[in-house]
């Protein structure tokens, strides 16, 4: 599961949806792998406005990556700044979480990640 996907996922428990603490989910005991993929500038430009930058900064730090700038780059930045493009590409698309847990900051529920596949099914008392 790419780091980009982590930016799209929040706690599945309905009561958590309205709180800010449930997003992003916090990786715990995360095992990461890095797969080299060809850079796709159009994809990154398209994806950029959909990323919750504050959440991505949190995830990036928690996964042990260098701190991201406070403000997201603009589409123009990505066109010009090759280094920024490469770094974002490496973080969002090349880095994958294979094992570990994703923890909700509100209810504390832990979603297991096994072989890159997270399990968001809930027991009946949380549905």
């Amino acid at each position, binding site marked *: 599961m790419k780091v*980009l996907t982590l930016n799209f996922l929040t706690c599945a428990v309905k009561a958590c949806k309205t709180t800010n603490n449930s*997003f992003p989910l916090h990786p715990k005991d995360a095992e990461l792998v890095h797969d080299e993929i*060809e850079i796709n500038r159009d994809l990154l430009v398209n994806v950029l406005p959909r990323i919750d930058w504050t959440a991505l900064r949190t995830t990036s730090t928690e996964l042990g990556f260098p701190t991201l700038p406070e403000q997201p780059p603009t589409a123009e930045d990505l066109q010009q700044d090759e280094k920024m493009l490469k770094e974002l590409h490496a973080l969002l698309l090349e880095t994958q979480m294979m094992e570990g847990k994703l923890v909700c900051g509100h209810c504390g529920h832990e*979603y297991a990640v096994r072989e890159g596949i997270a399990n968001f099914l809930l027991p009946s008392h949380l549905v």
Partner: protein
Amino acid sequence: MEYLIRFSQSYETFRLPEIQALAVLEGIDLKVVSYSLESPFCIVKLPSQDAAKRLIRRSILVQTVHELWGLGATLEAVHADVRERTSHLWDQYLTCSFKFTIDSYQGTRSGERKIDIINSFAYLGFAGPIKMRNPDQEFILFEDWPLNSTPLGIPDPKFYFLGRYLGTGARDLPKKLDLKKRRYISTTSMDAELALVTANIALAAPGKLMYDPFVGTGSFPIACAEFGALSFGSDIDGRSIRGDEKKKTLKANFEQYNLLGRLGGVFTADLTNSPIRRLPLGGDNGDNNDSGVKGRLFDGIVCDPPYGVREGLRVLGVRDPEKCPWVIPKGKEMYKLPDFIPPRKPYSFLAMLDDILQFSARTLVDNGRLSFWMPTANDQDQEMPVPTHPYLEIVAVCTQAFNKWSRRLITYRRIPNAQVDPGAVEKAKEAQETGKLLGKTADELNPFRKAYFTRFESPPTNTPDNEPVQ
């Protein structure tokens, strides 16, 4: 200029929606001049021959596209039309190498007769060498014959078209993604050709994000990734994604086609309790005049939800908490164990469709598309209506008919918030309140399932024919 599209004569109702979608994708102004479900020949108006080539290059249902040189019900009429349309073009083809053939649809000609007909076009004045392999230009006379013309001894076709060849569609892609050669499939994997057509109609393209909430073995995400999109998927049954956890997995399928870089992520989840972040409807059109991208994640959603017949339709929850009161407390105790599998209950197919529409309205960017498959009975009395949503406009309804039932591919476009009719939103709310389905068993919840297993028979009526013989 007018162009001739030579379709394959299959999946007829999908053909126009597919090229119309490709016209949107390529930004080409496409006008359909003549089209019929019964014929593989379609005439369109396009701005240029370059546009014609771009339009069909990734089409699954188009065989070839041609510059239209003439048409008519008789050869004489064709000759007159060719003179009228193209005399000013002939000079360009005087010296190039060329090939001239006849393509008879539903009919045959003897070799001699073919040569006679080809020679009747001698006035075009092409003096270049004839090359049957890789000629500079290829001219094809298409003949549209009536059905069964050979056994009936019909001497001439209904209609003729003369075209100059421009390009070929992507008819080889279904072979590349053929299920028979795919590492990992299941009983309900969508066949490659229809998955690719679906991806085309849903506008999958490089740089776009596509999502399948009923991913199974990954047929749709693979088709979308083949067209360059980044694919996401989820399924309530994690086993379908994991496969045998060795060589037969969803990931292995992406690997087989060298598409692993375009697999964004797959996870186990239930659409009614989805972990995908989304804002309430209408809540994201504040002061930023973006195209609805903020808070909405996907360019397209494609899926084939379980109909509840071959594949059970279930969501998280307990079917009958009163009858089995121990299930919930037991789950509370056990849910942290790694092997815990949460209980699931049967769910209504119609409610599931509403959930898909609501989810899509909240997660699709403006003009993003939802394409999903749903079954229906062929009998009009039992036909299931096409579901509607105030934020989604129906773009196309395509039908694949079987004996007693059909499945339809329904495609919607996410309307920008500003264009949504507030009256429709109110009406939809009321309809939702009154239309809530009650029931616990699979049959009660799913009229299609019930009809399927009672062979789509209408309730018995008291006609004299049905009365026992005295």
